[in-house]
């Protein structure tokens, strides 16, 4: 077991594809860290540099205090779980799991007992004699896990290990991987493009974009105080509502104006963000999480209100997601579009949600309403906004106007 440290790591493929840039992060001993970001942001590359499958162009990676740049995968003592499992098709489950142990010339009894231990931990005991192709997807996934844990390596590396499973199994395996990691206590770097997976599994989550680290924090911190517009729109599902707003001073306090509507900024929110008053008269990006919007007709406590028109509703049983159009300009910078889009096919939908298809003066908010709400499409609605949770971002830099920014 060991800590893993990236120090100013660069990766350039060929001569011009810069996959990872100036990546510095520290992963503690036994910690479960998730690297998350949209497809192509360099997560896999970063992971493979730890594994020794990809050369490090610049900077250093160390495992357990030892710089491993020049070491072979074998010498690094790590185990990796691949997206397509990479099971050896000609070997039985038990030979797959024991492959690495046998290569290390471990005594037979030891190999057998370790395989037995891993199989028990993963519920694979009845399948030890089968070939990989005689297993279901979930079982194959477990075999891949088994192959990693029997070796008792210093670090686990996992590259989207759940992406080949169906949704239900994915949720189940999510919990199982977290349980096993906890049980064996091995430092783990887990790569995924799925922010829900990242939030639910990681002790800490590192958000990457275009090869650069955006923010690394505990999931709740990431959610509550994203450092920039990209992280804000990437983390959270449904995504944060982001809209252009103008800051105005009004009688000692601050209000933000969205189109022809206004929201007062509570005094303590403004006080904790001294930089905010510097924006008065200027436009910034205002972020509101869906759960901080409520249908006024069922809201328990009053507060600032916005009005808009309901476009469509999704009843989920426990709650209702309402898409509400507000007369205010959307923020459609690259940060936001990329953050909100999981893959290319969703781009159209995302652009639509961001109001691009309209005249550019309307934004669609998603509100997470109480199930008691009787909201109907094509009706006007009053929204109650929890203004204590408002988030502010500079439109040009995308940086959060933070509590700490003095």
């Amino acid at each position, binding site marked *: 077991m060991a800590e893993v440290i990236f120090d100013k790591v660069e990766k350039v493929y060929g001569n011009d594809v810069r996959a990872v840039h100036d990546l510095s992060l520290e992963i503690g001993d036994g910690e479960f860290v998730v690297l998350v970001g949209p497809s192509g942001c360099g997560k896999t590359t970063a992971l493979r540099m730890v594994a020794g499958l990809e050369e490090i162009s610049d900077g250093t990676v160390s495992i357990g205090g030892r710089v491993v740049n020049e070491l072979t995968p074998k010498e690094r003592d790590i185990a990796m779980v*691949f997206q397509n499992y990479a099971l050896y098709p000609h070997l039985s489950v038990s030979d797959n799991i024991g492959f690495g142990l046998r290569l290390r010339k471990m005594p037979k009894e030891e190999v057998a007992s370790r395989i037995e231990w891993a199989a028990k931990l993963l519920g694979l005991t009845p399948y030890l004699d089968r070939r990989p*192709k005689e297993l279901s997807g979930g079982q194959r996934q477990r075999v891949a896990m088994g192959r990693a844990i029997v070796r008792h390596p210093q670090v686990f590396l996992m590259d989207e290990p759940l992406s080949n499973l169906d949704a239900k199994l994915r949720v189940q395996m999510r919990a199982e991987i977290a349980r096993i990691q906890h049980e064996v206590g091995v430092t783990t770097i887990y790569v995924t493009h799925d922010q829900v997976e990242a939030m639910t599994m990681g002790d800490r989550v590192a958000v990457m974009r275009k090869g650069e680290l955006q923010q690394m924090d505990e999931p709740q911190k990431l959610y509550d105080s994203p450092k920039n517009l990209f992280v804000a729109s990437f983390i959270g599902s449904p995504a944060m509502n982001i809209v252009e707003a103008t800051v105005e001073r009004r009688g000692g306090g601050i209000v933000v104006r969205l189109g022809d509507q206004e929201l007062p900024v509570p005094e303590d929110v403004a006080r904790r963000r001294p930089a905010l008053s510097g924006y008065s008269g200027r436009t910034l990006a205002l972020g509101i999480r869906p759960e901080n919007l409520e249908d006024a007709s069922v809201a328990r406590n009053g507060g600032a209100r916005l009005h808009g028109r309901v476009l469509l509703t999704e009843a989920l049983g426990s709650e209702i997601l309402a898409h509400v159009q507000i007369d205010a300009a959307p923020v459609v910078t690259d940060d936001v579009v990329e953050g909100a889009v999981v893959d290319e096919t969703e781009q159209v939908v995302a652009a639509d949600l961001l109001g691009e298809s309209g005249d550019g003066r309307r934004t669609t908010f998603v509100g997470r309403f109480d199930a008691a709400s009787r909201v109907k499409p094509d009706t006007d609605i009053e929204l109650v906004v929890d203004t204590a949770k408002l988030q502010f971002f500079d439109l040009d830099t995308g940086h959060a106007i933070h509590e700490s920014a003095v």
Partner: protein
Amino acid sequence: MSVVERTEDAAISRPKAVARRLRGPKWFLEMGWRHVVAICACLFALFPIAYVVSAAFNADQSLGGSSLIPRHVTLENFRAIFRTSQPAGSEFLPAHYVRWFLNSMLIAGATAVATVILGALAAYAFSRFRFKGRRFGMLALLLIQMFPQLLAVVAIYLIVLRVGDVFPVIGLNKPTALIVVYLGGAMGVNTWLMKGFFDTIPSELDESARVDGATPAQIFWGIILPLATPVLAVIALISFITTLNEYVIASVILQTTQKQTLPLGLYQYIDQQFGKHWGPFAAGVLLAAIPAALLFTFLQRYIVQGLTAGAVKG
């Protein structure tokens, strides 16, 4: 083929299609014509074999007058090729058949095994490593392959002649020399074929093995080769049969009767001006076909098995 069915476990097997029973003209349109085509193809392929079998058992020595069904069936032809002493007045070459047979098996067997190993090693390097000259190497192999080996016969003869002065083991009249020439000749095609197959084996398997602690050699022997059995079997088979049949180069390099291979030796049976021994020739050919047929039957298992075991993802 049933091999596919066998390995599927109950949890994942699909319900089998219920065979429909058809009759009459409809049966012919759906199924019958396939049988006709198959039978024609079989006849076409078996026709020459029928003649050889017939000639081998025919007491009549001349081919022209004999019918497909021999009037007098005899084993005399088989006895003749194994006989140790020459009958008086005959220019028939005794006692050499067994020699030729062994020479051929040795040369073809060694060539097949070495071809597979060398080709696989080269293909592994081309498929998995990135090195200077990789592209050039691949292209060169392909380009050289474009010229028939026959063009090089003179050069091969001269090279073997000269090299023999320095390394007698691969000099003229040495089976090792012939093997070396054969190995060079088929290298290009085989390497390309195998590289194509290796490329379909996901590189994650190598990487996974590397992370597990395997060296490139261990990956080659432990992962790549077992997964490539179908292509290895095909190439071993093709190489064995081609070598067994080869005449021209063998005739240039192997010069004494004792050292020759079956095609060279057997040709002498029918090459003589006044007594074409078609009977012993046919008997010899028939026996020579047995090892190739056995090898095919043996390797067939691996070809089919390998193809179904190739599924890596799913």
